[in-house]
């Protein structure tokens, strides 16, 4: 039905993502030349597994960024839902129920951010900066600052399991990415997000429920943060009130490397995923090469900038 037109549209998107992919391939080539272990299946799985948590966060962040906002509070949101979820599990509440509650906590945090931003009319950066302190404080006060140990083995087995050799966290991320892709590209909500981020006034005039759209974006971001939290506590076997420090920067970096514009209106789920893997591969490769602490920092800085330059050179204008 749409045969004559769809390919054009897809190819346009793919072209943009191709730039990001090229960056990934370059990093891959460099590291596999430098260390033989890099390009082995277990290590690649390792990279994916290690990128899974950032990917969760970054998917939610991408939707927020596309709708013209930013969410700096993801780390503390994850911490809060991690400690609450863990406390329930440790207290003997069945894992599925605890997870549901933890996810609800994440969404509630997103709701809080979203309401202040939409109905309160405040800037997203500053609201979520406030949230950054607030949710962290809740998590610390609730736990008194101590990690919660004793996550039940059943739950841990689930997060540490595999499906056909693929670690479950990676499977979860793939499912979530698919969902995010569908939301963004196939549902009215996705169109609303692009519209609100691209031209809020136009969206409002066209009858787009601007506030609900933003609210949805922040709630999804909160939800994704708590999914990441669940994966992490499953893997570590403990929930720390301090977890998630600087997650927001990693997620934003991944989204930006993947082509999201922090001005809103533009972003790609595929690009963000690739961005996450770029960052994961970078960290993995540097560890494999046993690069010294200071030089790791140096390499991270250089590679973020170089990835953006490559990306920029292979794709169109995106303004500064």
């Amino acid at each position, binding site marked *: 039905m749409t045969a004559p037109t769809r390919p054009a549209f897809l190819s346009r998107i793919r072209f943009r993502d191709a730039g990001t992919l090229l960056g990934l391939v370059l990093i891959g080539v460099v590291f596999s030349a430098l*260390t033989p*272990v890099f390009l*082995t299946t*277990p*290590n690649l799985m*390792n990279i994916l*597994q*290690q990128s899974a*948590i950032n990917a969760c966060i970054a998917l939610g962040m991408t939707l927020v960024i596309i709708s013209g906002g930013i969410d700096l509070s993801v780390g503390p949101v994850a911490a809060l839902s991690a400690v609450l979820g863990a406390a329930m599990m440790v207290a003997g509440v069945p894992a599925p129920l605890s997870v549901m509650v933890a996810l609800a906590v994440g969404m509630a945090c997103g709701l809080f951010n979203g309401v202040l931003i939409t109905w309160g009319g405040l800037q997203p950066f500053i609201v979520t900066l406030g949230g950054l*302190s607030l949710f962290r404080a809740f998590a*610390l006060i609730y736990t008194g*600052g*101590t*990690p919660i*140990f004793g996550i039940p083995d059943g739950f841990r087995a689930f997060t*540490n399991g595999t499906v056909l050799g693929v670690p479950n966290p990676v499977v979860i991320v793939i499912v979530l990415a698919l969902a995010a892709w569908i939301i963004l590209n196939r549902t009215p909500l996705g169109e609303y997000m692009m519209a609100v981020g691209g031209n809020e006034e136009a969206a409002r005039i066209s009858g787009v429920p601007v506030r609900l759209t933003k609210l949805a974006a922040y709630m999804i971001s909160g939800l994704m943060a708590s999914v990441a939290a669940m994966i*992490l506590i499953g*893997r*570590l*076997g*403990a929930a*720390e*009130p*301090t*977890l998630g*420090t600087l997650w927001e920067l990693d997620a934003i970096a991944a989204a930006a490397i993947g082509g999201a514009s922090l001005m809103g209106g533009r972003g790609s789920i595929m690009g963000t995923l690739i961005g996450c893997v770029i960052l994961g591969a970078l*960290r*993995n490769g*540097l*560890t*494999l090469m*046993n*690069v*010294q*602490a*200071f030089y*790791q*920092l140096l390499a991270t800085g250089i590679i973020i900038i170089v990835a953006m330059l490559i990306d920029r050179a292979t794709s169109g204008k995106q303004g500064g």
Partner: protein
Amino acid sequence: QDLAPLNSDSEPDRMDWSELDAKFGALPAVPAGTKVGGVSKTLTNEYWRSLGQGYQNVADKLGIEFVYQAAQSEGDQLGQLAIAENLISQGFNALLFSPQTDANLIPAMEKATAAGVPVLNVNDAVIPSAAHYVGNVQKGNGVNVANWFIANRPDGGKVAVIEGQPGVYAAGQRTAGFTETITAAGKFEVVASVPANWSREEAFNAAATILQQYPDLIGFYANNDGMALGVVEAVKAAGKQEQVAVFGTDGISDAYAAVRAGDLTGTVDSFPVLTGEVAMEVALRLMAGQALPRVVATPQALITKDNVETFATSDMAALRAALLAQ
């Protein structure tokens, strides 16, 4: 007079905590209305909460008013300085500082010193101009672990270090102590030494990657317990509990639990509650005008499954006894 820059690990003007009573007699009486303030790194780490507990124990026992404050997060250097300055302006008789970095509390210390208020640098980062330091030997943490490997793994092998935040004194010293000692033994190779910024998650990821790369690895040393517990999970996930020994530093309660459960091979406990008590006692002695050496070293001990029950006590008297018996 100008003091030489302090290196707490090597300062010659030092004594061990255990000799305090012997050399300077029992704790002098405390005048009524004494106020002591403590500024710590952050309360998000059990270590610093325990230290505060130690201060509080002594304060409660002697009826001293004690205020304990900490920065909002690790790395909040100016925030900690502001807190310290704000405390000084309230008039305390002694101050116990655990600075974020070697330099960030210098102005507060100078201000207090100028006002005649004794300032103790308690543990971790070392203010070079500090007149009084109470704490353990950072390098010793790593040396203790290295010695365990040398004693218990006579065949040697590959080991790895998970470092704390780059640029932090304690992280650097602990790593150096371990690496220098174990390398000198000859049979060991430190195949990886990477930073995980005190983060359990990053430590987990780094350890997983390292295990991937060196399947024959025999041990990890992590600069603190949080990271060590992350490493433990990575080792478990790789199914290598038998082969890989994991050590942490600090001796937080979760580490004790993990040692008991056999997950964590060991940790170097520096007994924060006891350290806090000793530091408070030193402060009181200084207020009473006693001429203590510049550095008072506090104990540390390698905790493994063998001795864990001996040290896992909240009874400080018993702990003191156990340490003195060592």
